[in-house]
């Protein structure tokens, strides 16, 4: 007993003693140049992609059948003043590329023009709704990260009938589209059991949480299953790896092995993939918002497509795409800078 505990103590001291030394050496070795160059390259790529995306969103106006003006008005009876206002807003008397840069300049100042239906500035219309979307996405992200990672880790660490059936369930859940999950959840918990409200956002506070429960679960369910499976695979792979086998055969306590060897090595790739999955929730939230009538950007987007309010459609599409690109880039930067095993050399995509 004393024998094993003393070996453990030595082993612990050895490993803990080595850690600060290693980090210190790594810090001394790591020059800032490559990191800054990498950051600059990533941010440059981000700006390039954003520019292309904004060009596509603006240029879409010219892909539509008919002239831009007739597309924007869509055969509605519009007053001459409104037409003049649209012409001024899109600078339709200018060449295409000039129109684009004037529009882009406005977007960069937070000016998306005026809504054709409401007449109000698009920015203020979006500002009233962005909060609900952010709440839904945040709630779903928390569910994905907490439940997905926890289920994956435990299923990975404790192989057996329970973990196998949980993973089989996760595989099945990955085939459930968000809107199907929403319909089933609404049927069971809102209609049959009457535990949850089926529509709207409710009063701020507890009411909002209650109203967000079903939508966020419906939005998150596929991603929870995906992250759980991914985490389980990563943990299993770590457990089979040589350094973990060595640690086990040296008789190190399993808590220590799990914390120091398994979680630490599996964490980075798993967190990166989980982060990308969370960024992917943005697209799914449009449908979920529409089903539960949450009054966010997604519902407004569908509404504006139906009412042919193109300035609003452009603005929301651009915001979604920009958020998606920024999140992806941030996760990529964090992954590369935080994980010392990833080389900062030229990145092959």
């Amino acid at each position: 007993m004393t024998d094993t505990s003393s070996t453990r103590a030595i082993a612990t001291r050895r490993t803990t003693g080595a850690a600060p030394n290693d980090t210190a050496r790594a810090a001394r070795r790591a020059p800032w140049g490559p990191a800054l160059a990498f950051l600059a390259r990533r941010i440059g790529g981000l700006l390039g992609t954003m520019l292309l995306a904004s060009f596509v969103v603006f240029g879409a106006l010219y892909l539509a059948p008919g002239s831009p003006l007739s597309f924007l008005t869509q055969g509605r009876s519009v007053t001459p003043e409104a037409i003049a206002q649209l012409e001024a807003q899109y600078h339709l008397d200018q060449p295409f590329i000039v129109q684009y840069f004037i529009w882009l300049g406005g977007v960069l100042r937070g000016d998306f023009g005026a809504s054709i239906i409401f007449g109000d500035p698009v920015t203020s219309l979006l500002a009233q709704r962005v909060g609900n979307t952010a709440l839904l996405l945040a709630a779903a992200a928390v569910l994905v990260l907490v439940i997905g990672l926890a289920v994956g880790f435990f299923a990975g660490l404790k192989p057996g009938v329970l973990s196998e059936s949980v993973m089989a369930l996760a595989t099945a859940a990955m085939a459930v589209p968000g809107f199907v999950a929403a319909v089933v959840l609404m049927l069971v918990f809102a209609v049959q059991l009457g535990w949850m409200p089926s529509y709207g956002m409710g009063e701020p506070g507890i009411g909002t949480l209650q109203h967000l429960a079903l939508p966020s679960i419906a939005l998150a369910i596929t991603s929870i299953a995906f992250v759980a499976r991914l985490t389980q695979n990563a943990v299993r792979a770590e457990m089979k790896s040589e350094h973990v086998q060595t640690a086990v055969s040296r008789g190190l306590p399993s808590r220590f092995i799990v914390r120091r060897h398994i979680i630490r090595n599996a964490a980075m790739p798993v967190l990166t993939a989980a982060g990308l999955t969370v960024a992917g929730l943005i697209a799914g939230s449009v449908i979920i918002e529409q089903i539960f009538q949450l009054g966010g950007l997604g519902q407004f987007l569908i509404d504006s497509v139906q009412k042919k309010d193109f300035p609003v459609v452009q603005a929301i599409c651009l915001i979604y795409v920009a958020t998606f690109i920024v999140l992806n880039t941030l996760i990529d930067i964090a992954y590369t800078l935080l994980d010392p095993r990833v080389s900062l050399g030229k990145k092959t995509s």
Partner: protein
Amino acid sequence: MTSTTAIATARPAARTPRLRILPGIGITGQIAFWTVIAVALLAAIGPMFVQVDPNAVDLEYAYYPPSPWYPLGADASGRDILSRLIVGSRTALLGPLAVVTMATFLGTLLGLVAVWFGGWVDATIVRVIDAIFAFPGILVAILATALFGPGLLAATIALAIAYTPYIARIVRSAALRERNLPYISALQVQGRHGFAISARHILPNVSGLIVANATLCFGLALIDLAALSFIGFGVQPPTADWGAMVGGGMSGILQGEPGEALAASLLIVITVAAVNTLGDRLVQRSENRA
């Protein structure tokens, strides 16, 4: 004696797997494969056996319970749910098939061209692919609906464009590995044209991976198209379609008549689960062979 029995028993054991159409995907893969075949058959020949007009409205029979006349009941307009599910399987499956076919063709072309020419061609293609990748499929389709109005065609083309980067990235990285192998240089030294080498040597060697990933894309495209039809941007009424049926069944859900929405949901989930499992197994198989 023992050795002859060993040989005698070993031979048929080695031969049986060859009887399977698609070896190397495991039992789960086989179940998934035959489920996909069954769903495809449902769409291909099922509609021939439908005796009732799937679009015939009869408000007297709204939400009629399952019975010999309506095997799965009737929907809010008194239309037969079973015949709508069977006829709707065509729209539900042909849409994603068109998306995947277009995306696979375009993606493979882009990937092979990028790898063969390299340099600025590759850099440009990668940049464009990255930019398209930033647009989630659903968002491209919604933008297309804003431009061209609701309908299956615009949604299908939009999704095909949105899915092209998935295939292009996979083809590019797989073809890049092939490109650096000695046999390609050998062919080049012999004076073979780059197009011929790409089409006749690189493409066949990466085709397993392409088919596997196209299968995975089919599942995603089915979900996206069903979601679009669900919110009314894809297939237009009265055409039967699984996604549109879930959407049409929403009012039934709130009135406690969930039959239509649940039946269509179940078919979507079974199909996507089978297609995804098959795709996973095919990816594993092509990775094992590589």
